[in-house]
Each structure stands twice: as C-alpha cells, then as structure tokens.
C-alpha cells in the first residue's frame, strides 16, 4: 500500500474530503480474531457459538505531507452503533510495528511491540495504544493522533491522522521508506469489544513516498 505525498493533510482530515477521490485504494482483508487467542476462558466459551468479526474487508487510502499521515478507512456496517448509554460502540484501529517483527495476531510482544491508533464511535478523542501482547495494552506515546468518523449509506468512513515521527516506544514512520500496517474493526451492534473483532490476518506493506 502506497502513502502518497501531498502538500498538506489538512485537506484530508474530513472523511468526505474530495481529495481522497484521487488517492489509490488498497483493500485489506479481515478475518475474525481467532477464538483460541482470546485472553480468558470466559471470552472463549461465551463466543464459541456466536459469530463475530464478520467483516471481510476494508478499503484504505493514505497520504502524508512530510510531517503527518492521514489514513482513510471505509468499511460496510449496515447497523451503526455509537455506543450511547449501555450500547457498545463501533470501533476501528490502525496498527504499526514499533520495532522488531511483532506478530499482528498476538498483538506484539515485549521484544517487538506495536502501536495503534484507535477510533470509537462513542468518543471524539482518538487513543494511542501500545501493545506488547494480548491483554497487555497500555496508553501509547502521544503522536498527535486524531480520528474522525462518519456513517452514511451503510458504511463507516474514518480518517485517522498522526505525526510521522514518534518518540520513545512508538512507531516511527519515515518518508521514502517502508513499514507495515494492520487493521481491526469492532462491530458494536454485535457487542464486539476487546479481542472480539475483525482483524487483518497479517501485516500489509506500507511504502511512504519520499
């Protein structure tokens, strides 16, 4: 997947920004996060016979302006859930390796962590999260993360932004070089939360224009 260089990502932060029309689309396939990797026996037994992570793919586009990156993610969801009251919100996340070669399905390890930016339909603020394995997420380093979502016509369009540079234990994205991206989607109306989600089965290569 290519990250096109643009003048400023400010023109892309709106999910419906016209500029996105001329950016290449990459389809990333998703599967249900494996039941066997769910961190507690309770979650495994309670979802054994319940379908989840039914989403099959999401469409991604990405641009950067030398300082920040904007990623647009579109996926089908006929029944949006904002998580009002006691509902569970729809959500999505984009992940990058911090260093080493983290296993996406395992959500990294202490030696090879990953960092993700998470959007939830219930919140205005995006979250930066550091993961060093399943069930071990911690607040991640601030990377100027934002996420804006909008639902129409049976699908969500979310734009994530963050700075390319990351300090400390965070993913550093360098123009002219390659890294990897992974995604996750939670369907709130199906009570999907935590590890109950759709995920990209493996990393997708991400090439940043110089």
């Amino acid at each position: 997947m290519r990250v096109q260089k643009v003048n400023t990502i400010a023109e892309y932060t709106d999910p419906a920004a016209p500029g996105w029309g001329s950016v290449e689309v990459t389809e990333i396939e998703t599967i249900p996060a494996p039941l066997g990797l769910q961190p507690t026996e309770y979650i495994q037994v309670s979802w054994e016979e319940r379908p989840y992570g039914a989403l099959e793919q999401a469409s991604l586009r990405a641009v950067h302006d030398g300082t920040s990156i904007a990623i647009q993610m579109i996926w089908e969801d006929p029944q949006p859930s904002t998580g009002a009251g006691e509902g569970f919100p729809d959500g999505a996340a984009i992940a990058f390796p911090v260093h080493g070669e983290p296993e996406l399905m395992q959500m990294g390890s202490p030696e090879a962590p990953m960092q993700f930016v998470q959007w939830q339909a219930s919140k205005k603020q995006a979250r930066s999260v550091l993961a060093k394995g399943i069930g071990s997420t911690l607040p991640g380093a601030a990377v100027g993360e934002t996420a804006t979502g909008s639902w129409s016509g049976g699908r969500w369009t979310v734009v994530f932004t963050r700075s390319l540079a990351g300090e400390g234990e965070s993913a550093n994205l360098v123009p002219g070089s390659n890294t990897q991206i992974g995604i996750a989607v939670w369907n709130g109306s199906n009570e999907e939360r935590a590890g109950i989600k759709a995920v990209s089965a493996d990393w997708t290569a991400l090439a940043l224009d110089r």
Partner: protein
Amino acid sequence: MTDKRQVAMVIDLNKCIGCQTCTIACKTQWTNREGMEGMWWNTVSTSPGEGTPKGWEKMGGGFRKGKAQPGKLPKQGEFGTAWNFNVEEALFQGDKHDTLGPIGGDPNWGTNWDEDIGGGEYPNSFQFYIPRICNHCTKPACMEACPRGAIFKREEDGIVVINEDHCRGFRFCQEACPYKEIYYNTVTGTSQKCIMCAPRLEEGVPTACSRQCPGRVRFLGFLDDEDGPIHKLVYKYKVAMALHPEYETEPNVFYIPPLAPPSFDEEGNPIDEDRIPMDYLDSLFGPAVGPAIDLLKAEKAKKKAGGESDLMDTLIARNWLDLFGPFTTNPKDVAKTLEERVQNRQG
C-alpha cells in the same frame, strides 16, 4: 506481605424483616454519585421471586465442573433504572397540580419490584427475604473473565475489587458473574460493584449494611477466626451456606436458611410438613440445607424448653458488637482521628 485472609459475612434469613435499611445504608455511602442512580450494591428481594436483576438466576455465568459458563449481559432495565418524580409539578403548583408519579411513564421493573409476592398456595403461602451483595468469591468468575486483569482479589482480606483505571467497560465480568452483582456506569464507562466497605474495614469499622441493620442479621468477620461467629456458623455448626453453590465461585457470603411455621391441612390444622418446600431450599442452597434446617430446629426446641444452646445464643446476638468479629470500631471515632491525621499531614 500479609497473610492471605478472607473476610466473610453470614446473613441470618430468619431475622431479616426486609426493611431495606442495609440497602439505603449502602446507597448513601457508596452509590450516590453520577451514573450510579440505578445501582444497588446491596439488594433485598423476596424469595421466591425474580429478584434483581430480573431473573438473574437464569442468566448463566459461573462455572460448571470448573469450566467457565457463558452468561447474559444484564441490562439496566432488568435491574431497574432510577425513577425521577415530578415533585415540582405535583407539589408546588398550587391547585392545578399533577399527581405525584415517576417522570416518563410507569416503570415496569425495579429492585425489590416483586416484594412479598412469594410462593405457595393459601393457606400455605410462604416467602422470605434474601439480602444480597457481591459474594467476594474465592473463585471470582468476574475476575477470571476480565481480559484486562482489571479485577483483583486483595490478599489481606479477599475483597474483590475493580481497578477502574484499568477497566475499559467491556463488561465480560457482568456476564460472567453468576450472581449478577456488577453494574455498568454509563457516565464513567466502567463497571462497578460492592467493595465490602473496604475503606471502613481497613479502619476496623463494620460494613455499613451490617452496622445499620436493625435486625442484627449480618455477621461479619474473618473466615479463619475460630473465635468469631462466622467460623462457628459456617464450619462448626454448618448452618450457614452459600447461595447457589452449584455456580462454583465459592462465595464468602453465607446464609442461615429460613425456618417457617408448619403447613396447614384443609381444615386449618397444622400438619407435619414444611411450609417452605425442602426442594425449593435445596435449589437455593444445595444439599447441605437439610441437615442445617434439622439442626436449627433441634437447637431452637432445646432453647425453647429452657435448655442451653450455644448456636441459638450466637444467632440471637444479644451483644450487638459480637456480630462484627474484629470490626467493632465506631465510624464516628475514625472520623475524628481521620481529621487529626489529615491535619498532622498538613503540618
């Protein structure tokens, strides 16, 4: 570190009058903040009945043969939401006033909704009250279900608490707890539950529900304290038992099962038949309930005939403070020293 110990409670169902003083003591102490309007960390419901949340005994969770069981996520409507009343319109509008009632139509469920309905057929109807709190289980299904490790059991007293800084509101704990003792706070986005008045116990003060109970119903203490009433009732006399032991979470709240007057025949004469069907008690407390009822009846008869009964004396609790094991401090005294301690710290 400290030794592993377990705080426990014994609730004598023969003495509970269903007054809800415990419920309100808890409400005013712990659940009077935002987002907690519909929370009742202590409930008292009539048995038989649907209870709180409605039909909780059919919602699953807990373990069977050691294996976690799926549970239903209880909804706020099943607990009952808080009712706001049209006080202004009903009481302060002169002659043209409305009738006092809940805003937004008639509610259809709430805690203690099915009060005093009970079971059985007249003249053999029966009912009793079951006060419930979190059982601070030895095998907490809530704790084992949480993918974030946000729930833990304190070493020093076995109290099960939720670390709200780690909780992300996933609510697997709510589903997994077979007693449905966890609530979700939509304002904080976290799960919340009975904390066994941990900050009070730390100061030697009994739980608010125990101390406020006018019926002297709720014994408190450490399970391993051989001089305390809990150990006596649970282990020595074996008359206190967990509610639904088949859920396999090993609760640390125990109940003295209820005795009842005999049944009547068609002519209204008492007959030698239990008013509260034994199979019903069995379904609540398991097979240990039969021998416990027999012993309670025998000791009661002994006492009635003028004999001695250590068991009955323990249950009667003539000395109020004997109820609370080591937790006999008056909260007033703690409040005083707390002030001093704060002042000292401020120099």
